[in-house]
C-alpha cells in the first residue's frame, strides 16, 4: 500500500497521466482513504487549470503587429 510520501512523489506524473495502470490504482486507492493527499491532488490539478486559463493565450494583436513591423525594418536593412 502506498503512503503519503510515495503518492506525493508521483503526484506530478499522475496529474499528467504519465503513470502505469498499476501505479494509478495504487495512487487512487490511497487518495480514496487519505483526505490530505486527496486535497493536495485536487488543488494541484486546479492550480494548473487556473494558471493555464488566466495567462494570455498568446501575443496580443498589437504586440504581434509591432513585432512584424520591426522584422520588416530588419529585412529592409534597418535596425
Amino acid at each position, binding site marked *: 500500500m502506498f503512503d503519503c510520501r510515495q503518492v506525493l512523489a508521483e503526484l506530478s506524473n499522475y496529474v499528467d497521466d504519465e503513470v502505469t495502470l498499476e501505479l494509478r490504482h495504487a495512487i487512487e486507492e490511497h487518495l480514496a482513504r487519505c483526505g490530505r493527499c486527496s486535497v*493536495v491532488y*485536487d*488543488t494541484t490539478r486546479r492550480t494548473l487549470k*487556473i494558471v*493555464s486559463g*488566466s495567462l*494570455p493565450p498568446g501575443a496580443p494583436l498589437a504586440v504581434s503587429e*509591432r513585432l512584424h513591423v520591426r*522584422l520588416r525594418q530588419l529585412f529592409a536593412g534597418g535596425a
Partner: protein
Amino acid sequence: MRQRTASDEDLPLVDRALAGDTQAFEDLVRRHECRVFRTAVGLTGNNEDAEEALQDTFLNVYQHLGEFRRDSRFTTWLTRIAINAALQKIRRRKGNVSLDDPEVAEAEFMPRRVESWRENPERLYAAEETRRLVEEAILSLPPAYRVVFVLRDVAEMDTVEAAEVLGLTVAALKSRLLRARLMVREALAARFAERPVLKSRLVQAGMMVKQAVAAGLSRFPRQNGEE
C-alpha cells in the same frame, strides 16, 4: 534525436528563410510567436518585458538562423533563445539570475495548506486580478524551477523537449516540475482556500449551537425529575 529532427515540420520554412525568403521567415514567426510570448510572460511576469523579449528573440533568430545546427528541433533552439531573452529582462531589474538548481529544501515545497478550495475560486477575482495572482505565484519560484514550470505548464511543451531545452535529464526535469507545481499551488492556496475567517465563524456558530443544545438538554432531566 535524429528521428525527431527528421520530422521537424519547421525545417522547410527554415530552409526557405535561409535562402532569403522573408515571407517564409514571417510564417515561421507567426507559427511560434504565441508560445514564445507566453513563455516570456511566464518568466518575466509582465507584458512589457515579454514584448521586448519576444522582439529580441526573433531578431536574434533572424540574425543567427545560419547557426541553427539541425541536431535538435527548431523549437528547442528557438526556446533556448527565448529563455535567454527573457532572463536578460529579469536581470535588468533584479541583477544576476541563475538557472542552476538552488537545492530547494524539502520544507520549501512540502504541502502545508491542505484545506480544500472553493468551487471555481478564480471567479472570486476579476480576470486581471487572477492573472496577477498567478504571475506572482510563478515569480515567487526560484528561476531554475520557474523555467521548468513555464515550459511545461504555461508554454505546454512536452517533457522530453523541455528537458532537452534545459539540458536536464527527464528525471531531473520531472523532479523540479513536481516541486515547482507544489510551490505554485501553495502560493495560490493562500487566496483560493476556503476563507479561514468564515471557517472560524462556522466553528464559533457550531459551538454556540452545541452550548444551546447542552443547555436545553440539561433542563430536561430537571423537568423529568420534577414530575
